[in-house]
């Protein structure tokens, strides 16, 4: 018997298994072939298409649309995967509303873009369902490259290097490869264990081995890697999480949103996953929205996103904000956490209204208290555990060109590296481009 939404505290089993299953199905169900043909036919095959320019991986979108129209979704999938080997995941998680679909001329014309994301999924699924791997490995070069981190950047880099005939060893600190695709992406965007299926499919290129539980700084050192490998690619992500500077931040019930999301992604039975009755998520990015929506889907009664600036400044796109709202999440803007109150465990959060003058944020002194037995901190991640000796740019590894760090023979890409947005698709582009540069360097 489900506990129900109004059971106090942080408890599991608020909803029945059936309700949970239904809540965590695909956000956007896959297109059927006829739907896909009709949707692809809406593409105008623009000259020098804006959608391609907007795609960090430069996928030839008009071409793959035409291939769907012409009845060859597998060929469309190959067009996508040749540019973006994680095109399947990107089809699911890309904020297309701020990338390709935002600039689609049909968005301009009628406020309704070609459904590029869903069609990309249709095309890439048709390749992966068939089980075949359309790319081949070149003759072995005898070179071996170390890739640190099996997230999107690392996987994209490894695949491209493997295609060129290099051997690749991926060192991954967590038990499973995939990075944020596996541990971070909203569960309703990547169902049926897609992240692992995608990694398995990617590995079919051959020449790549993954060593999980291999942590940089613990047994593996950058110096050692440089010595033992012909090149090193760092894609270590942002392992640190920013601290919440508020009184009571150490109370039970206060935790990092990324950990909560990871728990949801890794849960074998969602009915065993506890969630609060009154959940407050601090932050305004995609992580905040993901954590808030997941809390609601798990059965929390009240879920509030508390963001210190206005709506326009939120990192989450308007689509993501609306997604949260449609799930019953309340979005409070211009409030910042001051204290979490409770006797040992969080019970109430105290927020202060803010105002912004010339970009500088300050509290107005007006307070509001709302019930909060669970507080999820989504206030950003930071670079943690970057090896000594690398030049940093702000709090990221400084790179120039195609991911070249300040150290010879070491490249970096993905969220840990400077430049670009922290998106899966950007990480893929950076990993791929670094691989091209590594290859050029190795064979020169």
């Amino acid at each position, binding site marked *: 018997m489900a506990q129900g939404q109004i059971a106090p505290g942080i408890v599991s089993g608020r909803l029945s298994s059936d309700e949970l299953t239904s809540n965590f199905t695909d956000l956007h169900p896959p297109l059927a072939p006829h739907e896909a*043909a009709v949707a692809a*036919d809406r593409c*105008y*095959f*623009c000259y*020098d298409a*804006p959608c391609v320019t907007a795609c960090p991986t430069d996928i030839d979108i008009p071409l793959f649309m035409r291939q769907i129209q012409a009845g060859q979704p597998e060929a469309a999938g190959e067009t996508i995967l040749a540019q973006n080997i994680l095109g399947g995941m990107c089809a699911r998680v890309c904020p297309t509303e701020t990338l390709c679909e935002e600039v689609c001329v049909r968005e*301009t014309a009628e406020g309704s873009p070609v459904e590029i994301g869903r069609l990309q999924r249709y095309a890439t699924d048709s390749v992966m369902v068939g089980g075949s791997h359309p790319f081949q490995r070149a003759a072995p070069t005898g070179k071996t490259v170390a890739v640190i981190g099996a997230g999107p950047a690392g996987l994209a880099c490894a695949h491209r290097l493997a295609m060129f005939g290099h051997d690749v060893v991926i060192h991954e600190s967590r038990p499973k490869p995939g990075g944020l695709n596996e541990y971070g992406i909203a569960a309703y965007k990547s169902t049926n264990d897609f992240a692992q299926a995608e990694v398995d499919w990617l590995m079919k290129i051959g020449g790549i081995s993954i060593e999980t539980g291999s942590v940089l700084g613990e047994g593996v050192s950058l110096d050692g890697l440089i010595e033992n490998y012909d090149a090193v690619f760092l894609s270590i992500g942002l392992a640190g999480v920013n601290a919440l500077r508020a009184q009571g931040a150490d109370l039970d019930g206060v935790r990092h949103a990324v950990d909560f999301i990871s728990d949801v992604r890794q849960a074998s039975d969602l009915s065993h996953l506890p969630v609060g009755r009154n959940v407050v998520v601090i932050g305004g990015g995609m992580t905040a929205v993901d954590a808030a929506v997941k809390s609601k889907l798990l059965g929390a009664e009240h879920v509030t996103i508390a963001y210190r600036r206005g709506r326009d400044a939120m990192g989450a796109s308007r689509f993501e904000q609306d997604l949260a709202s449609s799930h019953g999440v309340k979005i409070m803007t211009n409030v910042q956490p001051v204290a979490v109150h409770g006797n040992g465990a969080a019970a109430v959060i105290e927020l202060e209204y803010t105002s912004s003058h010339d970009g500088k944020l300050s509290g107005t002194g007006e307070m509001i208290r709302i019930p909060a037995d669970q507080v999820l901190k989504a206030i950003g991640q930071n670079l943690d555990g970057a090896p000594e000796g690398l030049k940093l740019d702000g709090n990221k590894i400084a790179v120039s060109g195609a991911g070249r760090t300040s150290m010879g023979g070491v490249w970096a890409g993905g969220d840990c590296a400077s430049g670009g947005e922290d998106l899966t698709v950007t990480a893929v582009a950076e990993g791929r481009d670094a691989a091209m540069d590594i290859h050029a360097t190795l064979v020169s």
Partner: protein
Amino acid sequence: MADLTTNFLGISSPNPYWLASAPPTDKEYNVRRAFEAGWGGVVWKTLGSEGPPVVNVNGPRYGAIYGADRRLLGLNNIELITDRPLEVNLEEMARVKADYPDRALIASIMVPCEEEAWKAILPRVEETGADGIELNFGCPHGMSERGMGAAVGQVPEYIEMVTRWCKKYYDRPVIVKLTPNITDVRKPAEAAKNGGADAVSLINTINSITSVDLDTFSPEPSIDGKGSHGGYCGPAVKPIALSMVSEIARAEATHGLPISGIGGVTTWRDAAEFISLGCGNVQVCTAAMTYGFKIIDELTAGLSKWMDEKGYTNVSEIVGRAVPNVTDWQYLNLNYVAKAKIDQDECIKCGRCYAACEDTSHQAISMSDDRVFEVMDDECVACNLCVDVCPVDGCISMVPMTAGEVDPRTGLEVQRDYANWTTHPNNPMAKAAE
């Protein structure tokens, strides 16, 4: 409300829409449903001679061409004439005509090219009370292999001969249905007229193979792995039909010969276009086969609304209105100069006009870094391709230049006077203006 009542060859019908001789008109049941739905007339499915009827294939009779959302654009069929006994059809026709005296009922006939065959069937058709007959000289598949249908329609002498027999043994209007599978449609039309035909109807279907199955390499529609060309119809054939109708309407030998227009009539607008090119009425088949008889409501309401808007009170006022504007290329005004103009407020920046012009035409559209597309008047020949490929209705238009302006492409002043190829200096056959 405009009056849609049409009088074609003295045959009155409440509207100009007849169902063409085809599967929808094969029997009493269908025809009664059509009349109940509001169709103005019906050309009954083609009758053959008395005796064992023809047989049809027992596999697919139709093949289709689709748009992206399976919108049917073209249909191909290999069905033959009626495969029901003659006497059954004649009895049914008589019953239906008696019950619907205000509707047109035409008998379509196809019998061997022998006078005796026509002499035998015509009196029996007359007994049904049918308002007239249509001679099926158009069917391109199956029957043509037996010396009937298109095999007759492709030989003007046969058309004239058979038409003459019909006028001899039948007192009511005789319509000759023409095949488009011929080089010059004016010749069979003229032959029909010479034989005494009261009207021609066109077009019948066009020889076609809709597709090839790339696994079996069988043409479609496929009967046990083999295919035979069928007759193509539907929206895709309308332009061909309009052209053929116009040729008959404006040819000296056939000008004024009543025409029943056939070929892809799908909406009221198609009908109005056929009528404007000289048709006294239209016949519909594929649209009804695709959507059912209920489309007659849109066909009639749409035509009526348009006529009201234009101030026409009777269909006869529209007949042939466009015919004087159909001419030969050599008489087109070469002093008419237009330039494409892109409405920047409407432009959605897809660049299709640019790709079309740059790759396949006259390099007359420029593209800026921020995707502003503009016509270069000094290169534009006004070919209209940009208008045709633009996905936004009304975004690009062809704007005529006024006399006295200088065409930046040629550096010549636009002339006020009409001038055509026949007097053009580049024409070796030009006659000097006198």
